[in-house]
């Protein structure tokens, strides 16, 4: 049994270390500020999610889509029903054909998925100098380093290109972006938005908040997952201990 546990630990350790070694991007190691949803008991901070949403809705969504998140889902971020309706109706989407067969535009509804800023990818790339701004629904799961990558990238812009790097026209130097030349201009600055909860909008604060919101967009089930996990684990530990006691009892007469 002791050997079994030791080998299990060794195997997990080996896999973890190889996983960590694979995490490389633009050269600079990622910043790890520590987020509220990390760890065994970690949960989202709803106030932070809402602040993150305010940045997304006000800034990011001018170029990026969020096509897997429905407006109705924003209730989890702390928006009221009326606020959700207001956010949804800010953009228009093609309606189903009416009785005369005409397709009209209608304002978005809470049941719609978040309506992107461009009608299609070609239009999005054309409006952004040929670079397609990626959809952000899964960004926190689709990059090595996840939330730490987003947090670092948002603060990784360097105005003076370091020696030894050439950045093409229309691109920007970012310490964390693979290859360093990113098409997105720096976005975050002091007081980029005025938060409705009165929090001071520093660059770090904004980076952390937008990271939190995007992590929620990618893993909306996280709170439910960890809370169910906790209950399941408590049950399993007790149940397995009882099975072990029963095993000892049954085997007692044998040896």
């Amino acid at each position: 049994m002791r050997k079994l546990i030791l080998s299990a630990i060794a195997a997990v350790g080996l896999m973890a270390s190889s996983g960590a070694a694979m995490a490389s991007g633009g050269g600079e190691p990622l910043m790890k500020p520590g987020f509220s949803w990390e760890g065994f008991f970690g949960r989202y901070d709803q106030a932070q999610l809402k602040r993150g949403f305010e940045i997304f809705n006000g800034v990011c969504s001018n170029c990026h889509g969020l096509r897997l998140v429905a407006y109705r889902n924003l209730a989890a971020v702390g928006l009221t029903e009326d606020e959700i309706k207001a956010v949804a109706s800010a953009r228009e989407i093609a309606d189903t054909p009416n009785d005369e067969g005409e397709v009209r535009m209608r304002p978005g509804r809470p049941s719609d998925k978040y309506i992107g800023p461009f009608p299609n990818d070609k239009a999005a790339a054309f409006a952004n100098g040929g670079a397609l701004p990626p959809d952000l629904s899964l960004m926190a799961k689709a990059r090595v380093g996840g939330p730490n990558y987003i947090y670092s990238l948002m603060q990784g812009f360097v105005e003076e290109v370091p020696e030894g790097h050439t950045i093409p026209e229309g691109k920007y130097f970012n310490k964390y972006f693979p290859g360093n030349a990113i098409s997105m201009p720096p976005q975050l600055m002091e007081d980029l938005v005025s938060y409705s909860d009165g929090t001071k909008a520093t660059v770090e604060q904004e980076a952390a908040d937008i990271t939190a919101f995007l992590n929620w967009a990618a893993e909306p089930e996280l709170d439910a997952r960890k809370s169910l996990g906790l209950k399941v684990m408590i049950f399993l530990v007790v149940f397995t201990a009882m099975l072990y006691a029963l095993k000892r009892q049954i085997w007692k007469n044998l040896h």
Partner: protein
Amino acid sequence: MSGFQTNNKVISWLDQRLPIFSMMQHSAIDYPTPRNLNYWWNFGSLAAFVLVVMLLTGIFLVMNYSSHTSLAFDSVERIMRDVNYGWLIRYLHMNGASMFFIMVYIHMFRNLYYGSYKAPREVLWWVGILIYLAMMATGFLGYVLPWGQMSFWGATVITNLFSAFPVVGQHIVTLLWGGFSVDNPTLNRFFSLHYLLPFVIVGLVVVHVWALHTVKSNNPLGVEMKGEADSIPFHPYYTIKDLFGIGVFLIFFLGFVFWAPNFFGEPDNYIPANPMVTPPHIVPEWYYLPFYAILRSFTLDLFGIPAKLQGVVAMFSAIIILFFLPWLDTSKVRSAKFRPLYRQFFWLFLIDCLVLGYVGGKPAEEPLVTIGQLCTAYYFAHFLIIMPLLGKLEKPKALPASIAAAVLKEKA
């Protein structure tokens, strides 16, 4: 050991016509099992348990999955976001695949350590290898279904391997693809086969258990059961021990599901498949990595044979060679407990496989290429040179007279 007896007339009536109760009594309750099995013998039943978990979660996933290239990715995300407990079912299935391989790899290495593949258990071992091959195919097919970047490019790289075979290669690839590139027909046939193969595995497991019950379990001492004193009935001794094993396993498994569900996955697979953009570093799932390293360690065209073909042949040989193991191992003694030399080579071989796995997951750069080549050479040398020689050169320790004698001496 009592046969099946009952006072219930209905059960008795049924059993005389279809002896399911007698069979259960014979195969799951009275079934004689060595009294000295250690916890390494839990991993067979654990693998069977994971198989059931995979079948159940898979059936529910299919109810919400669309196997069209334009819908597959979003249908998986819909499962994650809108289907009740869909995230749980999918994460169980995703991590269950990795768990299945962990359980089976431990099961296989236990078998190597204790020489369980030797006579009279060769056929039992063969069926096990067939299960392993079917698992590899199923895992690969399943990884393609979410239609992310790694799904698409993994499918492209792996199916292209078959093009290495002369004359028929390109035809095989076209047949696998259902066209001239990995596309919608590929996804559809992969989905169909991914649903079929698990039931093939179930069938093979039945044969595996049948063979097991014919020759009975090996044990840590590697000496056969000789009399009543050596064996205990499967129930209640091993039913409770296996149940306890499942409890411990679930804590391990669900720890990943609830707290690190994407630990075994690749971030790139959360990007929808795009044939126009190649990911910088294409890697298969972790459980194929040692074989991927063997494949890539052939870098020179030799005697007119392209390096790719050599690699593909070596990769398949690395598994096929296992079928011959019962004869490549010339030792009369089964358990490494009594084979002081083999015991050391066993650990070397295990380390060799782990290093191969590590190399397989990394970009092909020096010094890893050379390390991979050395480890590949050692992998084959272990089977073709070391195993046959050890049996001749090694002087095994004295075997105990019987299981009971050894166990009771230990207690005294």
